[in-house]
């Protein structure tokens, strides 16, 4: 990002692209007003594997869709302003659109395979977006970390989904939820659930995978606001919420979710205090909020579903604007370090207004949708009678959230201005309107909850089907307000006022970093490259004789295994068939060639001799009923010898005979030859299944109109294999040309 320069680079701003999510949002709203949920759609895709493009939109999906498209609209507006100086913005917008479609697919997919595909697509697009500033090593490392962790979790998720699908006998999410109670006694459940949870936890940055999310802040701010606060990181939450009705009664489920959620929420809140970068502070508090959401899903009470959807909604409505505020500050001042930011409200009044309103919601103070969410959460907890420890933990987490809101909304905007007036000024309308709009939407929902109520209730009922009719706005209770909100506000205020002192106290604990999961990730990654280097040195040493030794040893070992584990009646007999003379000629050619290669000292002579061996084998093929193979062998052998002969003389004519291991090689070669002979004889005595060959032979003419079975197999029966082969052949040239060109350049310079 270029700061300070106010000349916009030429080219389109892509503001019109905001019409894409806007259109989708309006479509969704129109559909919700007109048709009852759930909506279904299905298109057959791979019928032989039971995979169909099955989509199902119920309350929870609709809520996620509203967030993806609604917040997405404002993100696109914001990005068109934020990226005005970025020459590669077209690329970023393209990936953003792709991400949005992947997200839409993931939250509407009903088929497990389809869900997994879109899930992974969000990981890939996230990787591209985090690593967008790829000239920076830190951005590359962060992108790789995000990819490895979310994709590793994705693999676990795939395993879990396959198990769940097998257990339920249904490859749809709705089928699994419907089969829920019946699955509890299945012996595969103890494997399936941890795998699924691993996928959800990595995606939603739960402890101990929480560290990738703050690092992902190297992405441009619109991306952080969209992917890493409002949408993608909620995907894990979404999946857990969707599966919750099936496994809610399970102790394992409850303990894992409440335990992991609580630890994540508390630990991320503590880590937020250690940061000075405004964006990273917000990222830590996002992780904390994701922990709270996980904890809420784990609660067994019917009110929990309502709390989850309300908090999910509220968090997106205040965190995305706060990220935009951080981006605006970065854009205007060139820093995000809270030590250097003060009194910005005079220079950036509209951004300040958005920050204060979003901060109110984050702190859960009245007049904001965050207040409604906090209310729903305390109701859910009082219903569920959670452990006292969890209760204290949530008070602590909420207090830190209040403090973070204070830092982002008050600390950087109030107080005396740091820099002289006139240097810093308000950003363009495309950057302050989006946060204000989203925040005002949140406040509107507080005054007119009827606007959001139906959607949130429908979403909550997918998590807690037993939930009755509730009016979110009617939940105001003076006692709740005083006990929960009042207390967290007071404690939060204390945290806010002592922020710097707490920060310095925690900063002294930096030795802890050496033992955290992030350090473990680093050392695992380093170990991986070390092992790769070690095994490459061991196996890919570049000495041909070494490769041959290994190949022959492997051949002997395999042969010995087959010899010992199969029962064969070997009858060796000499059959004076009509082609006997041809066999003799072939054997003579091969033996002569091999002998000459062994004795000759001239490099060209050795090459010709080895070519003789190839010709001998071709003669064998010719009379053993494989004329095509013989044909190919002749052609390959000729080309090889001719090309090698034209290149070889550069390396000198004489072959060195003083090679180490010469006698070992000789013994090994004889052993491999004898072993192969014995093995072939042995295989002759084994029954051969000729069904496939017979089938191809029978079908060749009637089905494929060809007399040459070999060719028919290549171009028709197994045409896909052939296509793959020629793609490999052609693309290997693509890879080799730069290398060969590189050799040339290295020589001439």
């Amino acid at each position, binding site marked *: 990002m270029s700061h300070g320069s106010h000349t916009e680079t030429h080219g389109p701003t892509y503001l019109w692209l905001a019409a894409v999510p806007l259109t989708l949002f309006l479509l969704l709203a129109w559909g919700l007003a007109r048709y009852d949920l759930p909506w279904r759609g299905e298109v057959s895709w791979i019928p032989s594997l039971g995979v169909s493009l099955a989509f199902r939109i119920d309350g929870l999906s609709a809520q996620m869709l509203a967030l993806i498209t609604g917040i997405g609209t404002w993100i696109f507006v914001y990005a068109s302003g934020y990226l005005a100086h970025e020459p590669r913005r077209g690329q970023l917008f393209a990936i953003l659109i792709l991400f949005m479609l992947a997200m839409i697919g993931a939250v509407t997919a009903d088929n497990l395979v389809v869900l997994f595909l879109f899930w992974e697509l969000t990981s890939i697009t996230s990787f591209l977006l985090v690593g967008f500033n790829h000239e920076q090593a830190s951005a590359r490392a962060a992108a790789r970390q995000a990819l490895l962790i979310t994709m590793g979790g994705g693999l676990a998720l795939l395993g879990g989904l396959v198990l769940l699908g097998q257990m339920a006998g249904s490859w749809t999410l709705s089928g699994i939820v419907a089969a829920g109670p019946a699955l509890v006694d299945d012996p595969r459940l103890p494997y399936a659930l941890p795998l699924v949870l691993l996928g959800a936890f990595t995606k939603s940055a739960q402890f101990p995978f929480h560290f990738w999310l703050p690092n992902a802040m190297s992405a441009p701010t619109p991306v952080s606001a969209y992917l890493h606060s409002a949408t993608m990181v909620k995907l894990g939450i979404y999946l857990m919420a969707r599966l919750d009705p099936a496994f809610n009664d399970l102790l394992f489920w409850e303990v894992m979710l409440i335990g992991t959620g609580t630890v994540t929420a508390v630990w991320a809140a503590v880590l937020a205090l250690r940061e000075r970068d405004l964006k990273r502070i917000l990222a830590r508090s996002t992780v904390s909020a994701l922990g709270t959401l996980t904890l809420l899903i784990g609660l067994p009470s019917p009110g929990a579903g309502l709390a989850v959807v309300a908090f999910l909604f509220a968090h997106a409505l205040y965190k995305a604007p706060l990220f935009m505020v951080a981006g605006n500050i970065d854009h205007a001042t060139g820093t995000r370090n809270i030590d250097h930011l003060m009194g910005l409200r005079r220079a950036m009044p509209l951004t300040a207004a958005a920050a204060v309103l979003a901060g109110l919601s984050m702190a859960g103070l009245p007049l904001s949708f965050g207040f409604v969410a906090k209310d729903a959460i305390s109701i859910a907890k009082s219903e569920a009678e959670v452990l006292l420890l969890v209760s204290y933990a949530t008070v602590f987490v909420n207090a830190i959230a209040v403090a973070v809101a204070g830092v982002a909304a008050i600390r950087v905007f109030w107080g005396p201005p740091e820099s002289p007036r006139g240097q810093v000024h308000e950003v363009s309308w495309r950057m302050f309107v989006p946060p204000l709009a989203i925040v005002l939407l949140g406040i509107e929902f507080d005054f007119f909850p009827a606007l959001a109520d139906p959607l949130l209730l429908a979403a909550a009922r997918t998590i807690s089907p037993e939930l009755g009719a509730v009016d979110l706005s009617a939940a105001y209770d003076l006692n709740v307000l005083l006990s929960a909100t009042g207390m967290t506000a007071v404690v939060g205020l204390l945290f806010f006022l002592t922020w710097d002192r707490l920060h310095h106290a925690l900063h002294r604990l930096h030795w802890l970093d050496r033992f955290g999961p992030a350090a473990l990730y680093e050392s695992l990654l380093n170990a991986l490259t070390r092992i790769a280097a070690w095994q490459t040195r061991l196996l890919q040493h570049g000495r041909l004789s070494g490769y041959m030794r290994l190949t022959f040893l492997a051949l002997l070992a395999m042969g010995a295994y087959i010899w010992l584990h199969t029962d064969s009646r070997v009858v060796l007999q000499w059959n004076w068939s009509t082609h006997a003379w041809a066999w003799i000629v072939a054997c003579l050619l091969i033996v002569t060639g091999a002998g000459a290669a062994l004795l000759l000292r001239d490099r060209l002579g050795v090459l010709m001799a080895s070519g003789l061996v190839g010709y001998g084998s071709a003669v064998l093929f010719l009379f053993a009923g494989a004329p095509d193979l013989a044909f190919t062998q002749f052609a390959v052998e000729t080309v090889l010898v001719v090309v090698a002969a034209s290149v070889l003389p550069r390396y000198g004519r004489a072959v060195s005979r003083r090679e180490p291991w010469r006698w070992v090689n000789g013994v090994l070669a004889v052993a491999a030859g004898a072993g192969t002979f014995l093995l072939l004889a042995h295989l002759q005595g084994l029954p051969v299944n000729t069904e496939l060959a017979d089938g191809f032979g029978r079908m060749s003419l009637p089905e494929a109109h060809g007399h040459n079975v070999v060719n028919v197999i290549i171009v028709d029966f197994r045409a896909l294999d052939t296509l793959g082969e020629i793609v490999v052949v052609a693309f290997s040239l693509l890879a080799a040309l730069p290398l*060969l060109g590189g050799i040339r350049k290295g020589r001439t310079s």
Partner: protein
Amino acid sequence: MPRSALLTQAARPLYWLMLAAAVWILLRGHNAPGGGFIGGLVAVAGSSLLAITLGPAVARRLQPLAPLPLAMSGVGLALLAGLAGVATGMPFLTHVWTDMGLSTVMLFDVGVFLAVWGALTGYVFALLDNGRQTP
């Protein structure tokens, strides 16, 4: 390397002869030994002969396309042959036959031929280029 005058004179006619043989091998492949792979290899042998005697530049000039585009057009042709089946509502790579005995099988085999010819001559020319520039 000293050049043989005989070989230099014979290279061009031999090249065209080998190319003709290659095409003949390609076309007879469906019913007799032959096909795209082998035909492609024979063509590679012809191009190599030309490249070794008269230089890669001459051999390149006598190919319809540069090696890499040639190989890629072969892959494209094979893909296209596969898509013809899709267009008629059948699975990918189901071959379509006309009444005259022509079919997408041939298109596919020509694709294989071009892919082999292009890719391997690409290697040969690049290796020869490297060899030529060393003293």
